[in-house]
């Protein structure tokens, strides 16, 4: 009881975020269908409720009430566990994501050296006192996130969301069907490959900010008034491409391509277990959209309009607006680009994205070490991008294979 009394704001946030996230996932299915329809000159779902908005409820009800079939040839334990893993990891990753106004937590002063002079000891003591009082105010204020002041913030997200691959590969493996296992294999290869550019692309941001803490990353952008996108557009492009692949979204949705794999890893799933996979996927999409906004587009910050002093409501709205834009962008891309071939997918990750991310990282290191203006990174980004294009253009042409004697 005491625990609930002491932590009720956090518990309430968890409840609200959990509900909102699930609701949004259901709603995104509707949005996806609408976006798809509009891009194909159709109208889309419009029969259930006004503008078809209740389609979400109808779909959810259908998933819940359908007969839950478990094929006899599956490994039952893993088969049931897989969707649970998929949704748990997707939900868990959201724990450290600030979704509204979240102030920068105060930083503790550096620990005292044993050989410190009395003056230094005094300075440390006063700094510690300020820190403690700041921390008390910070703890007293409500922050729009579940777990506030997590110093490893972004590392936690990557660690947890990489676990999602277990859901997919276990789902594919336990189903005991060739389509499922092929989907699962593709997925694991893809996710492991794209983890690398994903991680490398944000290292530049982390170095520039000096913190893994997501509130700090937003706070720094709001303080300087310049979004990280302006410094490192290349890192953003790499991050976005890699997160598309991480979410198994088109043009990288090879794990579940309907044409070759009959749905891929979730071929054998139906009813609510299938829905859990979908919710997990859409959750991932929401989380990565949040990350893109936080890392590269300043979170709730809008230059001159929304500053750290603005009210929480306007910050929430601006944040939600930016995230909505990226989710819609995800969908627009899905209905615009065709799917990559598997070798193209791998070539893109290993031959293009990883070297580019490394170049970007080295550029950030040099700029930081020589204490140059971070604006230098912008031309470096552009040069690296065009340079990569030129280098691939110099690739040897496709040659006719020499005649073989095999008949």
């Amino acid at each position, binding site marked *: 009881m005491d625990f609930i009394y002491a932590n009720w704001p956090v518990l309430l946030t968890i409840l609200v975020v959990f509900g909102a996230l699930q609701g949004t996932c259901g709603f995104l299915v509707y949005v996806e269908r609408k976006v798809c329809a509009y*891009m194909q000159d159709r109208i889309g779902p419009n029969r259930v409720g006004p503008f078809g908005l209740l389609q979400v409820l109808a779909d959810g009800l259908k998933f819940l009430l359908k007969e839950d079939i478990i094929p006899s040839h599956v490994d039952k334990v893993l088969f049931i566990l897989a969707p649970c893993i998929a949704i748990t990891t997707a939900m868990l990753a959201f724990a450290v994501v600030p979704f509204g106004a979240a102030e920068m937590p105060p930083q503790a002063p550096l620990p005292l050296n044993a050989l410190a002079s009395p003056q230094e000891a005094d300075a440390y003591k006063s700094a510690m006192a300020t820190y403690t009082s700041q921390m008390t105010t910070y703890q007293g204020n409500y922050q729009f996130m579940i777990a506030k002041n997590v110093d490893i913030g972004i590392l936690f997200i990557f660690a947890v969301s990489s676990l999602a691959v277990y859901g997919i590969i276990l789902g594919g493996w336990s189903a005991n069907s060739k389509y499922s296992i092929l989907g699962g294999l593709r997925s694991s290869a893809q996710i492991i490959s794209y983890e690398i550019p994903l991680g490398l692309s944000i290292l530049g941001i982390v170095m520039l900010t000096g913190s893994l803490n997501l509130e700090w990353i937003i706070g720094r952008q709001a303080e300087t008034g310049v979004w990280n996108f302006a410094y490192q557009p290349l890192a953003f*492009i790499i991050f976005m491409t890699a997160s598309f692949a991480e979410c198994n979204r088109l043009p990288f949705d090879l794990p579940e391509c309907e044409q070759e794999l009959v749905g891929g890893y979730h071929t054998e799933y139906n009813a609510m277990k299938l829905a859990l996979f979908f919710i997990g996927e859409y959750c991932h999409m929401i989380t990565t959209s949040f990350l893109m906004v936080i890392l590269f587009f300043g979170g709730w910050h809008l230059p001159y309009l929304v500053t750290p002093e603005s009210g929480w409501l306007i910050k929430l709205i601006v944040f939600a607006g930016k995230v909505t834009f990226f989710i819609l962008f995800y969908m627009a*891309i899905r209905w615009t680009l065709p799917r990559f071939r598997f070798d193209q997918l791998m070539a893109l990750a290993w031959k293009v994205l990883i070297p580019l991310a490394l170049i970007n990282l080295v550029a950030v290191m040099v700029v930081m070490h020589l204490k140059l203006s971070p604006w230098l990174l912008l031309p470096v980004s552009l040069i690296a991008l065009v340079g990569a294009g030129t280098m691939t*253009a110099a690739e040897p042409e496709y040659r006719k294979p020499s005649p073989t004697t095999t008949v």
Partner: protein
Amino acid sequence: MPIAEKDVRWVSPTKLSLMDRLYLPSIFSGLGTTMKHAFSKKVTQQFPEERPQLPQHYRGVHRLNRDEEGRVKCVACYMCSTACPARCIDIVAAPSPWKDREKYPEIFVIDELRCIYCGMCEQACPCDAIELTTLFDLTGLSREEMMFDKEKLLSVFDQTVKDGTDPVRTTSGKLSVASEPKV
């Protein structure tokens, strides 16, 4: 049998320009296309509320035409049922009660489920008595219900005349040679 060397044509992928190699310009031009479509006029027809405007020569449910006096125009010559490839027209002729023709159909039944809507009956008809209309959403709860008899087919005529959806093939006017009054 292996494919002969002369039949094999090797194709190489077209060389991409720098702009294509950069991917991003192509992606944005693609997005431009989809976005243009997203805000363009929709082609969807909301069926039960919006009815399609079918061409007047559409071949839907049959009708039996009436002459000027409101009698059935058919002279029971069996041309349609002979021409019918699906054998779905069943006619029983009887001596005509009217002076202008010898016979008239006592029973005239079309099995709308067997019919393939080819329109050969109306081509065969010498007096334009049978025609296919633009009615297309034909439904019924039983097979018996879909056997359209004379009254039903005449009511289809009345309905289409009322709706002003006469097929364009109608030459209307007088009865044809087969029904010329006896001399």
